[in-house]
């Protein structure tokens, strides 16, 4: 096989891995949208916040140290201890549940029955708030996150794929980041777990009932508000996972919040209400943007990843407005 073709395959594989990341964020969206009809713009910031909290806990950072220092003139920084990764993850998960409860108590409760656009705006407000809050709590500097996931290119794959190219060609085997591989594995586990949860637990069934029909679900005695707390908590876990993956890869920083912007076209493609859609959409976009950048990018100045996903989704939507797996919109008159 020619090296160009192999490089293309490598790009494709990398795109697939990146797509898994997009899917992870999109997944959080879909969960919340299905359960509460809220288009949660804050999903990306939730990932940032989760990652920040995780790093903060692991490093034993004093929360709000900057603020306290500014107000009282002290020089606090950290408690001087380290928390093991797993314990820190568990603690962060608790924080995310706490966060879900607060969101329900302070925001959603008051916005029941508002138009979707209003709820959407509220989540943008929430995103702003959390971003400021996270930065204020843990500081805005870029932090490294290492929860012990393997990093760097997988030598094993590299070595075992060199043979694909003919002798003498300049090909050194596929370069695939171990982190991406673990992310893929984690994502698969997460999806399977979510599926099992929604199929085989009472709470999961309640969630599905609410997603199908709010009114009907309430009429059989399902507490909508409890369901919301649960979905936001789950979305929080998903955000935590996404935060760990993205944070391990490129550090925990402000730009993490913008992964939400990567997830949006995924949603458009996959449909706002479909979990398989989120996954397939993520993969398509991940592969598509990498391939486009690889083949067309050099011709038009590069950095096409910023917009390719959107334009792809846009073109796609014009022909299929409900997305890949979205339900067909039937207008009743």
């Amino acid at each position: 096989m020619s090296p160009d073709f192999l490089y293309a395959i490598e790009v494709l594989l990398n795109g697939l891995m990146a797509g898994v990341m997009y899917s992870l964020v999109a997944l959080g969206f879909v969960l919340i949208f299905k359960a509460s009809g809220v288009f949660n713009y804050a999903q990306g910031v939730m990932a940032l916040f989760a990652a920040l909290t995780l790093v903060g806990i692991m490093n034993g950072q004093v929360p709000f140290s900057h603020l306290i220092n500014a107000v009282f003139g002290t020089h606090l920084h950290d408690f001087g201890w380290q928390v093991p990764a797993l314990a820190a993850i568990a603690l962060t998960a608790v924080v995310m549940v706490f966060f879900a409860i607060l969101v329900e108590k302070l925001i959603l409760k008051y916005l029941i029955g508002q138009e979707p656009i209003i709820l959407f705006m509220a989540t943008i407000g929430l995103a702003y708030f959390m971003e400021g809050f996270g930065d204020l709590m843990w500081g805005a500097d870029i932090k490294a996150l290492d929860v012990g996931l393997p990093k760097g290119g997988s030598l094993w794959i590299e070595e075992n794929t060199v043979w694909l190219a003919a002798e003498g060609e300049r090909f050194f085997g596929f370069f695939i980041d171990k982190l991406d591989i673990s992310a893929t594995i984690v994502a698969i586990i997460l999806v399977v777990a979510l599926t099992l949860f929604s199929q085989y637990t009472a709470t999961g069934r309640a969630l599905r009932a609410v997603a199908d029909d709010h009114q009907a679900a309430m009429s059989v005695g399902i507490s909508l508000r409890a369901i919301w707390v649960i979905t936001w908590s789950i979305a929080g876990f998903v955000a935590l996972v996404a935060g760990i993956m993205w944070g391990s890869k490129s550090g925990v920083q402000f730009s993490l919040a913008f992964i939400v912007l990567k997830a949006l076209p995924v949603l458009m493609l996959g449909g706002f209400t479909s979990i398989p859609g989120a996954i397939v959409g993520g993969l398509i976009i991940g592969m598509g943007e990498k391939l486009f950048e690889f083949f067309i990018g050099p011709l038009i100045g590069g950095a096409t990843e910023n917009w390719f996903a959107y334009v792809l989704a846009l073109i796609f939507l014009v022909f299929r407005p409900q997305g890949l797996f979205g339900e067909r919109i039937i207008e009743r008159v």
Partner: protein
Amino acid sequence: MYYREAGDFKTSYRADQQNFPIRFDRIHFWVMMVLAFGVVPFFINDYWANAVFVPFLIFAIATLGLNLLTGYCGQVSLGSAGFMAVGAYACYKLMTSFPDLNFFVVVLLSGGITAMVGTAFGLPSLRIKGFYLAVATLAAQFFLVWLFNKVPWFYNNSASGQISVPRREMLGIPITGPETAASTKYLICLIIVFVLGFVARNLTRGRIGRSWMAIRDMDFAAEIIGVDPLRAKLSAFAISSFYIGIAGALFFSVYLGAVEVGEAFGINNSFLILFMVIIGGLGSIYGSFAGAAFLILMPVLLKNVLVSGLGWPSDLAAHLEFMIMGALIIIFLIVEPHGLARLWAVTKQKLRLWPFPY
């Protein structure tokens, strides 16, 4: 309680449908205009112009534009900053290509060019609705910013990739470029805002505005009274982009002077304009001004209190600003989802009914 309406009756449809049918409001409005045109220019300094008045006026135009599209026609757009960029670059290209062209004509043409681009990006709105459309408009945002970044023709191949406004004069007074006086900047923006505000009001109270609102409120019912959704939506996109384009042109040429596209027209500005619309009030001209004023003034105020007043580091203040901004938006949406305009309308209604509660 200040309203005295007995004897304020209308004997013609012109009087009944005027912009301020209540005498008191009318007086109030003209007093404000006299202050804005006749008093403020004599007292304005660089700080007030750059920190408050000029950005307020420019964002008011953009907010008006977005409000026409989102508030009146019901089409959510997250690509406003991208369209502002179109206006800015159109302005730059026109000013550098035709140095003798009157500045106001340039601004107008920039709006026109943006209108065309906006209409093109509005085409999907015929098939895509709601959030799908909102997200789709992000395509415009990212694509346009990328375009202005990557195609050197747009920034005349300048080494820095920036565009800077050439100096122009009118009647011997510098109106763009670094020497422009604060009062000149202010007055240029004020005049354009006044005209565009007037036009927006006219469009929304007539046949076109009603066709937009009909599409917004119930699109199939709009169709059966003869509103063609294609024309209504595209005209809304066009007019809205025209406004936003003008805002972009002014933002670049009068306010900033030099612009780097990713910074000045990033997605955060799109959100900022959307916030202005929401906090001001969807579907309200008055609200567009109120929203812009609120979100321009609040950070200035916070900065003054936190940084200048309490001496905090500015990054802390910025974080706090984010929090307060976010919290305010949420609080607003909970307390009054229809924004300052509704708040004002309710207050006014209360004053009109005073001392009765209803």
